């Protein structure tokens, strides 16, 4: 059981000091979670700390590979709206 950080991480450092297992470190391109050390904060906190402060939707996955913070859950921007606006900007 371990969480993971993927390449959409923006390297903001917010998660790193919060990890009770010291499982998070700066990788080559983005922060990483050491799967052997990660406990998903079980026994320390009710919620996994990294996923509770991460500002980037989709950057942290649970053990099954699902985004803990899915699109729209943190910014409040409905995903279809974001897609439409991005398409409009590309078309300019």
């Amino acid at each position, binding site marked *: 059981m371990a969480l993971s950080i993927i390449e959409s991480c923006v390297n*903001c*450092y*917010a998660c790193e000091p919060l990890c009770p297992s010291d499982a998070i470190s700066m990788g080559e391109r983005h922060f990483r979670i050491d799967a052997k050390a990660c406990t998903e904060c079980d026994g320390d906190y*009710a*919620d996994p700390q990294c996923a509770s*402060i991460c500002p980037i939707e989709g950057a942290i996955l649970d053990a099954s590979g699902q985004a803990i913070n899915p699109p729209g859950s943190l*910014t*409040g921007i409905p995903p279809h709206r*974001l897609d439409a606006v991005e398409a409009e*900007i590309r078309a300019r």
Partner: protein
Amino acid sequence: MELKVIAQDSPAPTGGCTSGACGSSTDAMAHLPDHVRKKVHNHPCYSEEAHHHYARMHVAVAPACNIQCHYCNRKYDCANESRPGVVSELLTPEQASKKVLAVASAIPQMTVLGVAGPGDPLANPQRTFETFRRIVDKAPDIKLCLSTNGLALPEHIDEIVALNVDHVTITINCVDPKIGAQIYPWVFWNHKRVMGAKGAKILIKQQQRGLEMLVERGILVKVNSVMIPGVNDRHLEEVSKIVKTKGAFLHNVMPLIAEAEHGTFYGVMGQRGPTKQELSDLQDACAGDMNMMRHCRQCRADAVGLLGEDRGQEFTMEKIEAMEVDYSAAMERRARVHEGIEAHRKTMAQAVQPTKEMLAPIGTPPARIAVTTKGSGVVNEHFGHAKEFLIYEASPEGVRFIGARKIANAYCVGPDVCPSGDDKGTVLDAILAALFDCSAVVSAKVGIEPWSRLEAAGVTPSGTYAMDDIETAVRGMYGELIEQGWAAKDLSVQAAG
């Protein structure tokens, strides 16, 4: 006749300072105790007058944040954008202190170092305080500041006091959690992400507690508020009253910046920012209760230089690594430069004596006058080189500062190159739009082509006041306009359009 500019019955709003000197006719700082005036005397972000002379820098050491704001996108880093929360390169405390010493040595008028992000300084306490500790040791002649959302302020108050950080800015957008829920989707608190009004309530409580604790400890507090039309615009007058009562000494109401391409909630959802007039009206409304800041440039979290400029590109880490800095020699040089600035300020203050007389007969309409300057409080920038205009309003009661307006491109393409063909029209159109409410523009020099376009648009250009201090120039220009019997602009109607 005694002029009562600050009096209750005066029609002129009382906020803001005059152009040249805060010791002059509409002195917004006059009521402050001496020790406070002394503290802000050379702080460009706290004193309108000081910002003509002294520079600041921000170091981007604080990437993490503990809240989300709807006007911020945490994915954003960019070399060209100029707004808060945006940086080019993140620095370690060691790199940051190197950069500070290099900048302080190259730009001796730099008096203030701030940590303002790109996240929240107090969500990165180790990095922020380690940076400050290094500066305190090596460069005791630099003032330290930080700018925070306030969530973690109470827990770090002792460290802030211990490091002698004597200026703190708190961004307070509301005191009502219901309004807060429309601005802050979540805060990270007590090991949990707390959403909506519940999160906003925690943030508001921490901000207010933090403000009180800072004031109790004698630390100067400026409050920033982002004006978001339809969300908190009607609420900010109340915020202003409350923070003033609690002892904040300056309130800075800033316009929301929201563009779809920034990828922020407000940008994507089409939330508009306020018009110049809406902003100015709200600042005037708050001014009855509070010192208002009107010279803020909403700078980047890695900005370097005078407020109107950003010299960050001259001080990338790559360039800094190659610089040799002898800071004790630099400190002596800095002290000499500061003495020179103070002598200049004294001369200027004497040149603009507080006026006992009206600038014009009562009932003469006010005129807004744009000024171009490179700093030092004088008219020393050519029209064609200006990338921003300082807007002043002259009225029979005196001169007051309205705000700074940026334009994307200066009229001239290069130092001596004027634009050609279509570009010329486009750039001038943008300048005329920025000066929509102005009756005159006062520059060190104005070229022939823009001169005639300005005149045709009802903006009288002038190069007569080159090297004069700004207040003298604005007073003089106002007199000229009156003599010419200028067509006064109805400022409220004009602006609403």
